[in-house]
C-alpha cells in the first residue's frame, strides 16, 4: 500500500494503481472521456489532467502511476485552467446539436461542459464535418459528434476480441471507421453505445424515440442465455423503450450481449398474443380468460379421467421463470402425470436416474478469472454464451488462462484455443475417454474402476494426438475447469460425455459443469420441471405421443430437439394447450387453445443462472392487452382443477415454495456410470448450432436483431475434404436430406467443421424439415 495525498486528503492505495484509481478511492471525481475502467489506457482526451508535486507539466490521472508520498491536486487553478483548455478544444469542432441528439441528458461531454465549458465559444471558424458510417442495424453513427476518445476502438479489440473499428487518418481528419465496406458484426456491439461518451454512437432501434430523462429505470434479468445478465429496463408510458446493463461484477460486469439489449423490440411485436384464443375448426375464436381457462380445465380433466394422467404431457421452455415451471409441474402432477420436462433440445436422458442433483456450471462465474486451464466440450461458446466467452477472453488476456476445446466445431471464439480436438460428434466420447486415459497416465493414477471396462472396449489403442495434447495441457494447470456446452447437452450420447468430463475433472483436480442453454437451465431442475422416475422426458413425450399436451413458451417447430417430430406428435394430440407470449405458425397448426402469457418484462419471476445465482425480478410494464403473467394463469388453472397448493398470493411465495432455502445443496453434477451406447456411423453427421438470434421466441421476433449478420439464413457448412469427397464446390446449391425430410441449402466451405460432418443450423424455419439436431444427413448437388 502507498500513502498519497489528493487535494490535501491522505489516502492509502494499492501499489501499481494510477492517480485515477487513487482518486476513486479518495472519492474525488476527475473528469475524463477516454478513460474507462475496463479498457486499456489511451491518455488521449487529456481531460483528466491533474497537478502532481514536482511535475513541471500537468499529468493525465488515468495514466500516471502512483508513487509513495505523491501529492496530487485535482482542483487547483492550474488544473482547472488545463481542463478548461481541453474542454474548449473538444467543443470547437463538436456540432453542439444536443437538442436533436439521443445522447442528450446522459452525455459525458454535455455534463462535463457544464463544469468546464464556456458560455460562448472563441472558435469562429468553420466546423469539421465527418460523414456518417453504416455500422449495421444496431449501432447508429453520427460521426461529426465524435471526440476521438477511441473507447469504441479499444472495446472491439480488447473486449469483443475482434478489431472491427479503427481511427483512420491524421490530425483533424482523424475519424473512426470500420474496415472498408464492413459493418460491426460483433455479438457485443451494442456496448459501443454505452461506451461512447458522446452522441457519436447511439442505438439505432431506439433512435429519436424518447429523451433519456423521460425514461424510468427498472431492474430486471435477461431471459436469454444462462448467465443471467442483469438489466436496467427503461420504460416510458408503460412501454419498454430500451435496455441497458446493470453493472454486476459477479455476472455480466458492465456489458450486455446484443440479444440482451435489443430483444426488447419483440415485446411490442405484432406477433404478441394479447387475447385467449380457442380453435373453432379452422378458425380461432377470441374468448375471455374465464371461458378459456374453463375450457382448458374441463378438457384436461376429461382426458385425465378417461385416459389416465399419463396421457398428459407438459413441455416448457427453459426460458420460462421458476414460478411458471414450478406451477406447471405441480399442475401436471396434480392431474396424475409425471410427464413434464423443460429440456426441449436434449436427446439423451440416460443421466437422469444416475445424477446426484441439478446440473450447473460447477463453479462461480467470477472464478473464471482465477482459472488457468479450461476445457470446453461441445460448445459454440462465443455465440451461445457471449458474455461468458468475454470473461474467458479477459482471463486469457490478463491472467494467462489456457483454453482447449473438444467438439465438431472450430469457429473463431476470438480467443486463442491452445489445443483442439476437432472431432465428429460420434467421436467425442472416445476423445474424452482418450483424454482421461492420457491424463491418468500422466498423473500416475488409475481410472475410476467403473470406466476401465469401457476404455478397453472403446479407446482400445492409444489416445489420439489431440487428446494427449489436451491432457498434457490440463496436467500442467493448477486450477482446472471443464465446461460442457449446448452441443454436448444436445449430443446423442450427452450422458456419457458428462461421465467422462467428470472423470477428467477428477484426474485433473478441477471442476466440471454445464454452460447452460437458457435463462433457467438450472432453475428448471430446481423447480422440479423434470419427469420423476415414472415420467416421460421431453424426448419420450414426442416419441410416444400423448393425448394432451401443455406447451409453455415454446414453439414446436423451433424449440425442440426434433421440430418436425414435435409438430407431428402435437398435431395428432386430442388437446394442445399453448401458453406463450407469441403467436407462431407452428403453434397455430397444433394448438386448440392459445393462452397469452407475458414475457419477462410484464411479470414477476425468477431465473437461476448457470452458477446457481437466484435472481428475481418484477414486472417493468403492465401486461400487453389481455396477456397475463404465466404463474397467475397456472395458479388459476390449478384452482379450477381443484388441485391443492395453488393459493399463492405472490410470485415470491411461489418462488420460496419452489426453491426452498438452500439451493446450493441441490446443485450437483455428479453422475455414476452410464452404459456406453454403441453407434455405427455410415454417413455424414449433422452438427447443429442454435443461432444466437433464433434461440428463443423473443429474439426471433426482434426485428433489428433479425437484420444483423447473426441472423443470416442457414447454409450447409463443410470442411474442404468433405466437399471434395462429395464432389461439391463452395457455393453450390445442395439438397440436404435426413430420415425425416430434406431441405435445399447453399454449401459453404468451413474448415471449422470436423471432417465427415455438415453443420446446419437448427431453430430456423428453413431447416425444420431435417428433423433431429443430431444424426446423419446426406448431401447432394441439386
Amino acid at each position, binding site marked *: 500500500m502507498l500513502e498519497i495525498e489528493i487535494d490535501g486528503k491522505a489516502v492509502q492505495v494499492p501499489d501499481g494503481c494510477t492517480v485515477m484509481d487513487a482518486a476513486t478511492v479518495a472519492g474525488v471525481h476527475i473528469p475524463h472521456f477516454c478513460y474507462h475502467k475496463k479498457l486499456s489506457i489511451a491518455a488521449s482526451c487529456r481531460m483528466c489532467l491533474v497537478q502532481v508535486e514536482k511535475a513541471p507539466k500537468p499529468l493525465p490521472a488515468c495514466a500516471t502511476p502512483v508513487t509513495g508520498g505523491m501529492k496530487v491536486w485535482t482542483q487547483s487553478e492550474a488544473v482547472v485552467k488545463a481542463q478548461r483548455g481541453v474542454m474548449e*478544444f*473538444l467543443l470547437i469542432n463538436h456540432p453542439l446539436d444536443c437538442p436533436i441528439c439521443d445522447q442528450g441528458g446522459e452525455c459525458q461531454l454535455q455534463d462535463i461542459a457544464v463544469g468546464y465549458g464556456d458560455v460562448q465559444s472563441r472558435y469562429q471558424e468553420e466546423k469539421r464535418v465527418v460523414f456518417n458510417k453504416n455500422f449495421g442495424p444496431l449501432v447508429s453513427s453520427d460521426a461529426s459528434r465524435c471526440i476521438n476518445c477511441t473507447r469504441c476502438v479499444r472495446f472491439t479489440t480488447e473486449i469483443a476480441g475482434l478489431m472491427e473499428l479503427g481511427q483512420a487518418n491524421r490530425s483533424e481528419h482523424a475519424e473512426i471507421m470500420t474496415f472498408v465496406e464492413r459493418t460491426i458484426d460483433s455479438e457485443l456491439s451494442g456496448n459501443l453505445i454505452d461506451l461512447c461518451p458522446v452522441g457519436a454512437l447511439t442505438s439505432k432501434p431506439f433512435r429519436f424515440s424518447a429523451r433519456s430523462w423521460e425514461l424510468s429505470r427498472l431492474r430486471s434479468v435477461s431471459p436469454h442465455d444462462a448467465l443471467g445478465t442483469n438489466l436496467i429496463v427503461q420504460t416510458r408510458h408503460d412501454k419498454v423503450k430500451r435496455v441497458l446493463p446493470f453493472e454486476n461484477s459477479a455476472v455480466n460486469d458492465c456489458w450486455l450481449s446484443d440479444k440482451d439489449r435489443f430483444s426488447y423490440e419483440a415485446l411490442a411485436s405484432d406477433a404478441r398474443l394479447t387475447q385467449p384464443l380457442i380453435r373453432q375448426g379452422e378458425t380461432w375464436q377470441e374468448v375471455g380468460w374465464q371461458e378459456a381457462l374453463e375450457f382448458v380445465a374441463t378438457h384436461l380433466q376429461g382426458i385425465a379421467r378417461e385416459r389416465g394422467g399419463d396421457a398428459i404431457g407438459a413441455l416448457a421452455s427453459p426460458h420460462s421463470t421458476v414460478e411458471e415451471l414450478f406451477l406447471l409441474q405441480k399442475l401436471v402432477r396434480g392431474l396424475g402425470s409425471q410427464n413434464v420436462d423443460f429440456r426441449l433440445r436434449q436427446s439423451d436422458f440416460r443421466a437422469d436416474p444416475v445424477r446426484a442433483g441439478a446440473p450447473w456450471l460447477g463453479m462461480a462465474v467470477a472464478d473464471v478469472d482465477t482459472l488457468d486451464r479450461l476445457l470446453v466440450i461441445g460448445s459454440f461458446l462465443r455465440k451461445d454464451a457471449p458474455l461468458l466467452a468475454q470473461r474467458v477472453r479477459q482471463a486469457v488476456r490478463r491472467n494467462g488462462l489456457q483454453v482447449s476445446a473438444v467438439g465438431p466445431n472450430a469457429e473463431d471464439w476470438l480467443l486463442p484455443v491452445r489445443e483442439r480436438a476437432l472431432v465428429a460428434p460420434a467421436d467425442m466420447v472416445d476423445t474424452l475417454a482418450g483424454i482421461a486415459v492420457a491424463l491418468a497416465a500422466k498423473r500416475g493414477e488409475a481410472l475410476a474402476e467403473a470406466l476401465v471396462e469401457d476404455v478397453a472396449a472403446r479407446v482400445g489403442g492409444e489416445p489420439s494426438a489431440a487428446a494427449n495434447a489436451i491432457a498434457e495441457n490440463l496436467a500442467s494447470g493448477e486450477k482446472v475447469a471443464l465446461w460442457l456446452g449446448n452441443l454436448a447437452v444436445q449430443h446423442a450420447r450427452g450422458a456419457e460425455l458428462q461421465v467422462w468430463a467428470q472423470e477428467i475433472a477428477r484426474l485433473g483436480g478441477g471442476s466440471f459443469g454445464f454452460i447452460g442453454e437458457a435463462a433457467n437451465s438450472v432453475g428448471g431442475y430446481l423447480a422440479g420441471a423434470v419427469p420423476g422416475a415414472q415420467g416421460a422426458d421431453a424426448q419420450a413425450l414426442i416419441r410416444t405421443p400423448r393425448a394432451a399436451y401443455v406447451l409453455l413458451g415454446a414453439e414446436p417447430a423451433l424449440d425442440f430437439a426434433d421440430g418436425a417430430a414435435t409438430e407431428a406428435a402435437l398435431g395428432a394430440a386430442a388437446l394442445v394447450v399453448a401458453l406463450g407470449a407469441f403467436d407462431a405458425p407452428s403453434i397455430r397448426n397444433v394448438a386448440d387453445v392459445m393462452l397469452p402469457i407475458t414475457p419477462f418484462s410484464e411479470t414477476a419471476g425468477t431465473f437461476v443462472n448457470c452458477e446457481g445465482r437466484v435472481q428475481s425480478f418484477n414486472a417493468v410494464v403492465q401486461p400487453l392487452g389481455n396477456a397475463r403473467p404465466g404463474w397467475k394463469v397456472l395458479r388459476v388453472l390449478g384452482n379450477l382443477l381443484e388441485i391443492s397448493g395453488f393459493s399463492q398470493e405472490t410470485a415470491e411465495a411461489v418462488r420460496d415454495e419452489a426453491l426452498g432455502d438452500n439451493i446450493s445443496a441441490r446443485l450437483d453434477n455428479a453422475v455414476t456410470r452410464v452404459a456406453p451406447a454403441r453407434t455405427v456411423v455410415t454417413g455424414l453427421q449433422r452438427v447443429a448450432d442454435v443461432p444466437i438470434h433464433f434461440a428463443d421466441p423473443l429474439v426471433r421476433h426482434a426485428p433489428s436483431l433479425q437484420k444483423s449478420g447473426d441472423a443470416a439464413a442457414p447454409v450447409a457448412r463443410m470442411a474442404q475434404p468433405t466437399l471434395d469427397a462429395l464432389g461439391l464446390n463452395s457455393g453450390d446449391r445442395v439438397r440436404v436430406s435426413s430420415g425425416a425430410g430434406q431441405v435445399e441449402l447453399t454449401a459453404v466451405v468451413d474448415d471449422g467443421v470436423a471432417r465427415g460432418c455438415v453443420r446446419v443450423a437448427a431453430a430456423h424455419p428453413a431447416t425444420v424439415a431435417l428433423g433431429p439436431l443430431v444424426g446423419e444427413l446426406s448431401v447432394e448437388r441439386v
Partner: protein
Amino acid sequence: MSAHPLILAGLDGDRTWRLQDYVARGGYEALKKIIRDKTPPDEIIAEMKASGLRGRGGAGFPSGLKWSFMPRSFPGDKYLACNSDEGEPGTFKDRDILRYNPHTVIEGMVIAAYAMGCTRGYNYIHGEIFEVYQRFEEALAEARAAGLLGQHILRSDFSFDLFAHHGYGAYICGEETALLESIEGKKGQPRFKPPFPASFGIYGKPTTINNTETFASVPFILSGGGEAFQNLGKPNNGGTKIFSISGHVNRPGNYELNLGTPFSELLALAGGVRGGRKLKAVIPGGSSAPVLPANVIMDCTLDYDAISKAGSMLGSGAVIVMDESTCMVKALERLSYFYHEESCGQCTPCREGTGWLYRIIHRIEHGLGRADDLDLLRSVAGNISGRTICALGDAAAMPVQSFVKHFGDEFAYHVEHKKCLVPPEIQAVGSQIYVSPSC
C-alpha cells in the same frame, strides 16, 4: 575556423558509401578493436558518458546516460532503433549521412548493440528518401557479407542483426514511440510515457532509440576516445554537430562544426545572407524551435546551452535563415499548416488546436485578422503546450509563441492594415527561385 568534421570527413570521393571506401577511411576499426579486446560494455558506456555526446535528434539528451538505462539482466531480445525519420522542416543532415556515409551509422549501431546487449536493430528511414533507403539496404548487405553484421560478428560470440525499415512520410513517426508503433506495423501514434522505451519498447521489449547522427558519432568516440570528442566542443556539449543551413543564404547545405562555434561563422561558411540583404530572423534548430531575431542569434554560439539560454533550442541543428524580405506572418502560416496536417490526431489539444492556430494565422495573413487574434493565438498555443502526449503539441505551439513574441508588431500591422509590413515587391525578390552563385 573551428571545423573538424568527423562524420562528413573524407566524403569528397566518388563512392564514399561503399564499404571499401569506408574501411579505407579507417572505418570499422573501432568495432574491430572492441571485438578483438573483448571490451567490457561498461567501458564503452563510460566512454560515451565521457564524450558529452548529446542526442542529435533534437532533444539533446545525454546519449551515454540513455544507454545506461537499458536493463542489463533482461532475459530475451533487446532492441535498438535508429531514428532516420528526418521529417523536421529544415533538417536534411541524416539524409546526407546515410547517402554518403551509411557504414558509420551501421558501425555505430553495432557498437551500441554490443554495449547494451541488443540482438536486433532497425533503422527507420524517412519515406520520402527512398533511394537513401535502398542505398542503406545495400550497405547492410555489404556489412553482412563482410561479417560485420549478423551472426557471430567478426567470428566472435556477439550477434546482432540490423534491418532497414522505411516510413511512409508521416512526420509523427519521427517521434520515438510513434516510430516504435510504426515498426510494429501499427498506426504511427506516440505512446504515453511512462513506461519508457528502455523498459517497454518494440514488442514490449527494452529498446534504445538514437538519432542517425548520434550513432554516426559513436565510431569516433570509441576510436578517438570520449575525452577527445568532448574537447572538440564545450563542456556539456561535446563533439561536432552537423548544421543544415537553409533559407536566405548563398551556400545552403550541411556543415559539420564543433559545438560552441559562433553562429556568425556558420553564416559566413554558408556564404552570408544572399543578395547582401539584412538578416531578419533565424530558426536555429528545426521548425519546432522558437525563432530568434537577428540581433539575438548573431551573439550566440551554436551549442545546446547557449541557444537554450537565448530562448530557443539547438534541436536537430536545422538552421533556417530569413532575411528582411520575409513576411513573418506568411512564414508562420506555412509552419502552422505543417503541424496542422502532421498532428497524429490522437490527443485532443494537438488534434483540435493545431487546426485552430493555422486558421487564425491564415486569416491574419489574408487580411481577415481581428483585434483580439494575437491574444487568441497566445492563449490557444498556451493551451496546447505541455498538455499533449508527445512533443508535437509543443512543437506546434513554440513557433507561434516565439513569432508573436518577437514579431508581434508585424502581426498587429497585418490585423490593422489588412496587408503586410514587408512590401510585396520586396517579398517577391526574396522568394525568387535561387540559383547558387557557385553553380
